[in-house]
């Protein structure tokens, strides 16, 4: 096993290099530059933007820019943002805690709803509970988060005036009040995102459970006189977990990458909003850094999922 993991990690190095090259090319070829906001401002002659482009190396050939980026990256230099002229790593680190807190909570919420609801729904397919759970799930993933977010704001902030809808990254209160405030302002974004994720996740869990629940060994276990709950948890769920683990592994990088729309609506200063504002202003160093870290996490969690498969189903041979 250890050997397998080691080998996979070694393979990851060239594959990440390849991914970084493709990412860089996509970003470098995408049209636009960081100075569009001042384009029509008469105080900034167009020559100024052109000179800045040249100075930031935007007019160099792509392979040169890539080599430049790569060699700096290898020395731990992430470059600086064209827009804020700050170091990219500082910019990302500044936003990481908020993203981890909000998006992480949302993913946790999604899992804690999806797994029990999905499992229970699968044990009683087409019961009233199952039908209700399915309908709610359908509503959940057929409404975009920008819409549910707005509905939440209209209801909880404007009509009822219970919750704030502008996220503050540093609350002035201390101690217990700080905790309360932190939770209060995160409720709406976490719910919006968590419920959206939970909706599709529930469907997957339910389907995965249905796939195994009638398998012979589950029937056997039941025949042996084991209790229903025990059968479900010990025997069925473990096998049904393979698709679920796959999905969770697919979702985990998003905990770092943030959720662009939700962050935008609630003004959460997370990585998602950094990414979208950087994309819209063509701030390539920032976009490159965020997507590259994201890619690393994708590869890492793919590996973790593979290791977990072996644990869930010992017959899977990892070579």
């Amino acid at each position, binding site marked *: 096993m250890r050997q397998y993991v080691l080998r996979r990690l070694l393979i990851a190095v060239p594959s990440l290099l390849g991914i970084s090259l493709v990412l860089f090319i996509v970003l470098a*070829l995408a049209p636009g530059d960081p100075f569009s906001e001042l384009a029509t401002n008469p105080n900034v002659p167009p020559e100024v933007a052109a000179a800045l482009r040249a100075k930031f190396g935007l007019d160099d050939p792509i392979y040169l820019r890539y080599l430049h980026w790569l060699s700096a990256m290898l020395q731990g230099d992430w470059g600086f943002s064209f827009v804020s002229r700050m170091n990219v790593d500082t910019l990302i680190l500044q936003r990481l805690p908020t993203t981890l807190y909000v998006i992480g909570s949302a993913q946790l919420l999604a899992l804690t709803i999806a797994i029990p609801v999905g499992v229970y729904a699968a044990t009683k397919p087409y019961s009233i509970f199952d039908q209700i759970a399915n309908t709610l799930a359908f509503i959940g993933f057929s409404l*975009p988060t920008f819409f549910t977010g707005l509905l939440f704001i209209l209801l909880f902030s404007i009509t009822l005036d219970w919750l704030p809808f502008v996220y503050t990254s540093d609350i002035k209160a201390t101690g217990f009040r700080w905790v309360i405030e932190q939770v209060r302002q995160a409720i709406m974004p976490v719910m919006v995102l968590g419920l959206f994720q939970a909706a599709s996740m529930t469907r997957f869990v339910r389907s995965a459970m249905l796939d195994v629940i009638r398998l012979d060994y589950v029937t056997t276990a039941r025949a042996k006189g084991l209790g229903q709950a025990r059968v479900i948890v010990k025997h069925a769920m473990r096998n049904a977990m393979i698709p679920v683990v796959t999905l969770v592994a697919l979702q985990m990088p998003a905990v770092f990458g943030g959720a662009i729309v939700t962050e935008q609506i609630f003004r959460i200063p997370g990585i998602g909003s950094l990414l979208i504002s950087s994309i819209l202003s063509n701030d390539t160093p920032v976009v490159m850094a965020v997507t590259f870290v994201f890619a690393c996490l994708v590869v890492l969690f793919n590996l973790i999922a593979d290791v977990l498969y072996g644990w869930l189903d010992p017959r899977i041979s990892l070579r």
Partner: protein
Amino acid sequence: MAGLTLASPSAERRPAWSPWRETWRRYRRHKLAVVSAVLLIVLIAAVVFGPFVWRVSINDIDFNARLEGPSLAHPFGTDDLGQDILARMIYGGRISLAVGLAAMAVAVIVGTVIGALAGMSRGALGHALMWLTDLFLSLPQLPLLLLLIYLFRDGLKAAFGPEGGIFILIVLVIGGLRWMPVARLVRAQFLSLREKDFVEAARALGASPLRQVVRHILPNALGPVIIAGTIDVAAAIIAESTLSFLGLGFPPDVPTWGRLLYDAKDFLDIAAHWALFPGGAIFVAVVAINFIGDGMRDALDARRVI
């Protein structure tokens, strides 16, 4: 299996047993799924043939009829320029449904093929395909979309007209980039299934790898694929509206359902009908497709007795 059927004494009275016929028989038992299939067909027919029945232009501006609720003249009401929402929904529905269905088709076909290959292969091919999946998972969609629009818009516009061109682009980018989760799911199922006794048995009996996959492994791995495929319909329709939210995507004068919902959101407390109809349409389409998926899943699940 064929031998079994022939030997069956009932073979002469009942039509020849075929797995597909059996599946269809099982599918018909799932009432919601049948209703949903009809509903989806009606929906598709409505957006395809709707313009021949409802002959109101999608961009006729009428300032005297701004933000009107449903009426005889405008069954779904009007938007803030007095444009007819029903006409716009019929028009936009084509795009939304096409984006959704294309996403599903691409996800299911490409995802299954790549996932199956990666799951069966034990060598470099498996690694290469997983690398490809990782690459596509990490590609940032928005810059990619900007890049593709930039690279191909003029070419596609020349070939298919301005709307057709951007239509193909959006369908390809949104629909085409949703196969990765399916590939991962299929591969994971394959890793587990290929070691199961019944596959082992088939292998021992000399079944070719293709036969192993098509006859034995794939049918057992389809559960998550169907779920993923049906969820992708909703996800793609929503992804298109999210692009509008971020200021990208279709030109704003192309009223897809997602775009209508986006445009309506600021007027929610003035003209709720504007959001209600497109939101409802997305919901109906999503529910229908998901129930069809459920029906197919149950029909394909040989152990389930219906």
